């Protein structure tokens, strides 16, 4: 009976299970009951599909167990009595119609016995493979969470980010002005579900202590568009966000728990942000985040106060492509719209284009995607090395079993059956290794997670989910087949009867086997070279970033951040007064050895840029150079141990009322003054002409310092350029954390509502800034070491085995008068030939990898970063030398042992 296709959709799980039933149950059972059985299964699956995961899991465990038990029961009648009962009605089914389970069970049992018979080989094979599989599973979890896993928003594949770009200055994507947003939104027909958010830092006050938070001002339909449901209360109504008296806010679950003790009555009460009250209408669960994972409170806003603002690019704009419209079509429509706005508002919109980007393209960027791809490629190669290792091990083992195999053939076993038997062994080995590797990867994924900065949304954190587990099982099976196939076919290929002929050397390597073994050795060398060169190049790249002399002394220094709210500190004078007062009071705190203020710390992620002109030079339109800048207090250079190379540091006499001064760094001198110390020269920056009074040494000012050239930097004195956000740096005699709370109290004496955030020692701060690159370097280092170890084990194993195969040949040579040295040289030459060929084959592969890394780094460079050094230090020669040394050792040890043999004994060796 042919089962007809059910007319309602079956979930994948049921389909897979139906296949398993067909394979495992005897045809007499599944053919007769196929449709009915599937319907019953589907009924049950439907009954549990909305249940808790534990109930669903129990259901499938029961089904799988039942299937296996039934398969065995149907194939092996348990007792004679059972058989007797069967005969009562029906004759036993003819043998041919039996399912494949019985021979499979035989194969499996036999395979287990063979695997356990050679425990050392098994352990080496399983550990090699497990390492390879663990590395692959771990890196795949990253690939999965970054590139494969669907984003947790409805119709996420139609969500796009809409950016402005300034065609005149650069093609970079930029945030959008409020007026442009509303114009686009009103007129574009290819995009719908427009929503915008604006991230700000605000001070939450009115609680026991003030706190600085990341606030998102969002259009009221924001949560609806992203399909986010509150865990308590509601999200915004569409008419909210105007200029009503009591604006509304949604609080994040984290903040609700940490600062409001998870009080349910927070809904309906108010929170005070930068002095304005907001009534709380809902709590958003921790699981919700969109692009920036650290938002504390969302407030509804239609940005009415900036409705006609076409200058400040503040909005992150999201929209959804209308079904049936492509992203390209949306891009064209918006480009036309932007062109029209250019003619309507030439004074602000000239050169302003638009860029529509799918959410998936926005993060991770090309550079990160490239790095992940390299990592994945590298670990696949590691797994390949492991496979080659195991294949050569198994080949040696099958050699030793040549006679057993011949006996089985003589007794009537078909070649296909034998190959299947050997493959079963490989697959079982691989599955054991897969289980171990997956367990190891749990640790690996945990390690990866420590490398993620908190602002990355939770959705992008790697986890081990069904996809990753499926991948793990798949690569295990694939690995089993890959390394099992060669030894299996090779074992049954050729004459199977000769090993039985008396006196034949059952273990002697034939020419063909020798070639395969040679190919294995070459493959090991080629793969190891590729991986090691790739890992070394990348490690070197990251290491340069980390190893640079920071140019400052970070010992016993603690930092804390202050951001003065603009609604309260409206002008420079009020900020100067605040900082003056805080400085005066900190000086009285016991234990403070020294302190300073700076608007940005070394190794920062973000340093503001400003256009400048050197007085006396003329510049064309849009030719103004730009420089990084920061504001510091007079003590900064001295306290941080940064050298002032010429002129002087700032002093307390550089006040807002005295003439404006700046200090530049060495890079600025080299880049814009041809190395001439520019003391007394004047630079116009921030709208004012200022005198250069000093030159400071370059320091590792940005996170990427070391990889990139230092950037030109201008320092302003605090009294002349008092920006709202400043860091207090405190150097203590001993434990700097002891200073944290007295200094906080001092700040609160000056302003009770002023929050202090990010209290950390400089070392801790630098460590978090560098967590990503650090982890990457460590991962690559570990992967490189693994590859080297696996390759060394493999090369040694194959070499040693092939030398041992030549024992009798060596015996003949020695009996004929060859000196041990000659024998050693001969074997060494053989080894070198293989190693050399392998390495030569590996060079183009390695070059390919280096090239790819180069293209990624250049890509980073085209994003505005300057690469200090090229990849010329590529370590192919070093790596090749190491591998040749490994190869020679691998030849020398077994060869020496062979020459120690008594020639007579060696001759008798089979």
């Amino acid at each position, binding site marked *: 009976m042919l089962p007809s296709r059910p007319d309602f959709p079956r979930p994948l799980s049921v389909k897979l299970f139906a296949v398993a039933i067909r394979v495992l149950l005897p045809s007499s059972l599944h053919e007769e009951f196929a449709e009915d059985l599937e*319907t*019953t299964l589907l009924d049950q699956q439907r009954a549990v599909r909305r249940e808790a995961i534990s109930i669903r899991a129990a259901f499938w465990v029961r089904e799988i167990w*039942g299937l296996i038990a039934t398969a065995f029961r149907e194939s092996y009648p348990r007792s004679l009595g059972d058989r007797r009962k069967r005969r009562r009605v029906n004759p036993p089914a003819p043998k041919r119609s039996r399912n494949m389970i019985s021979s499979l069970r035989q194969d499996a049992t036999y395979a287990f016995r063979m695997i356990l018979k050679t425990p050392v080989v098994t352990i080496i094979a399983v550990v090699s493979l497990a390492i390879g599989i663990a590395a692959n599973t771990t890196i795949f979890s990253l690939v999965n969470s970054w590139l494969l896993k669907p984003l947790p928003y409805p119709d996420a594949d139609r969500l796009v980010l809409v950016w402005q770009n300034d065609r005149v200055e650069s093609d970079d994507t930029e945030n959008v002005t409020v007026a442009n947003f509303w114009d686009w939104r009103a007129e574009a027909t290819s995009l719908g579900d427009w929503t915008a958010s604006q991230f700000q830092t605000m001070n939450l006050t009115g609680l026991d202590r003030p706190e600085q938070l990341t606030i998102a001002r969002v259009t009221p339909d924001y949560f609806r568009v992203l399909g986010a449901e509150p865990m308590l209360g509601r999200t915004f109504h569409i008419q909210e966000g105007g200029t009503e008296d009591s604006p509304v806010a949604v609080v994040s679950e984290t903040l609700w728990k940490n600062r409001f003790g998870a009080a349910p009555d927070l809904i309906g009460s108010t929170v005070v942000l930068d002095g304005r009250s907001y009534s709380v209408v809902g709590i958003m669960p921790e699981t919700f985040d969109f692009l920036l994972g650290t938002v504390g409170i969302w407030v509804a806003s239609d940005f009415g106060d900036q409705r006609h603002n076409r200058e400040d690019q503040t909005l992150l704009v999201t929209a959804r492509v209308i079904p049936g419209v492509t992203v390209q079509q949306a891009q064209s429509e918006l480009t036309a719209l932007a062109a029209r706005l250019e003619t309507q508002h030439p004074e602000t919109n000239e050169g302003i284009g638009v860029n529509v980007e799918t959410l998936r393209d926005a993060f991770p960027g090309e550079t990160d995607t490239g790095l992940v791809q390299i990592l994945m490629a590298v670990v696949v190669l590691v797994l390949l090395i492991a496979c080659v290792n195991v294949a050569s091990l198994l080949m040696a083992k099958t050699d030793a079993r040549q006679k057993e195999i011949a006996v089985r053939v003589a007794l009537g076993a078909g070649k296909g059956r034998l190959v299947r038997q050997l493959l079963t062994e490989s697959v079982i080995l691989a599955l054991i290794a897969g289980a171990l590797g997956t367990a190891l990867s749990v640790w690996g994924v945990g390690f990866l997670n420590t490398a993620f900065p908190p602002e990355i949304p939770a959705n992008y954190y790697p986890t081990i989910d069904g996809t990753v587990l499926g991948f793990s099982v798949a690569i295990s099976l694939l690995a089993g087949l890959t390394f099992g196939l060669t030894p299996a076919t090779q074992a049954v290929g050729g004459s199977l009867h000769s090993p039985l002929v008396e006196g034949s050397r059952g273990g002697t390597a034939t020419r063909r086997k020798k070639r395969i073994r040679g190919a294995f050795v070459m493959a090991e060398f080629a793969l190891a070279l590729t991986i090691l060169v790739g890992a070394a190049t990348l490690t070197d790249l990251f290491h340069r970033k980390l190893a640079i002399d920071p140019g400052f002394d970070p010992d016993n220094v603690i930092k804390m951040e202050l951001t003065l709210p603009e609604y309260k500190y409206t002008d420079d004078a009020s900020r100067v007064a605040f900082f003056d007062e805080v400085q005066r009071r900190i000086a009285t705190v016991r234990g403070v050895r020294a302190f300073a203020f700076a608007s940005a710390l070394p190794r920062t992620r973000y340093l503001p840029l400003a256009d400048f002109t050197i007085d006396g030079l003329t510049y064309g339109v849009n030719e103004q150079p730009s420089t990084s800048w920061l504001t510091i207090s007079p003590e900064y250079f001295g306290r941080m141990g940064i050298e002032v190379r010429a002129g002087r540091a700032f002093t307390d006499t550089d006040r807002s009322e005295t003439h404006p001064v700046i200090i530049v760094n060495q890079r600025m001198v080299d880049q814009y003054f041809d190395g001439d110390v520019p003391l007394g020269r004047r630079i116009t920056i921030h709208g004012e002409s200022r005198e250069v009074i000093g030159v400071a040494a370059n320091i590792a000012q940005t996170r990427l310092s070391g990889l990139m050239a230092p950037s030109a930097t201008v320092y302003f004195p605090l009294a002349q350029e008092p920006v709202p956000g400043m860091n207090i740096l405190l150097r203590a005699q001993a434990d700097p954390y002891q200073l944290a709370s007295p200094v906080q109290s001092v700040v609160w004496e000056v302003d009770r509502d002023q929050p202090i955030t990010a209290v950390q020692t400089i070392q801790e701060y630098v460590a978090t800034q560098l967590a990503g690159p650090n982890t990457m370097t460590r991962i690559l280092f570990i992967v490189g070491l693994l590859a080297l170890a696996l390759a060394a084990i493999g090369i040694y194993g194959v070499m040693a085995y092939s030398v041992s195969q030549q024992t009798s040949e060596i015996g003949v040579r020695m009996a004929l008068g060859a000196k041990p040295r000659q024998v050693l040289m001969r074997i060494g030459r053989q080894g070198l030939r293989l190693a050399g060929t392998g390495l030569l084959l590996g060079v183009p592969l390695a070059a390919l990898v280096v090239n790819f890394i180069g293209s990624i780094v250049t890509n980073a460079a085209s994003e505005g970063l300057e690469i200090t050094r090229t990849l010329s230090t590529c370590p192919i020669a070093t790596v090749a030398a190491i591998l040749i040394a490994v190869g020679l050792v691998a030849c020398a040890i077994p060869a020496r042992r062979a020459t120690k043999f008594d020639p007579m004994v060696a001759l008798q060796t089979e």
Partner: protein
Amino acid sequence: MAKPNGHEAARMIPLSTPVFQILLSLNDRDLHGYGIIQDISARTEGEVILSTSTLYGAIKRMIRDDLIRQSDMRPDPDLDDERRRYYGITEFGREVARCEARRIHKLAETIKKTRFVERTS
């Protein structure tokens, strides 16, 4: 096929749990596969839940041994799904179930007499 008799029925016991439970479920009405699983689960308060494969393995053997048969019964066409088959108990099946029930009953009596349960629990 010869008409099964009491002797034949006695040779079939003891029955496996699934077989006995299926016979009990079909004692007073015909049921489809999912119905049988549900009925057993409800009657035993979740203690016995058959997997689909176990159920059909048992059904196959029970049809072969003439304990149950495929039933021609069809429910109300609106509720019906033509892919489903219904199963009913045969006379022989009922006889075997009775034999098994008597065996278990006797066993229970024995256990009661030896006060085994009270002593161990």
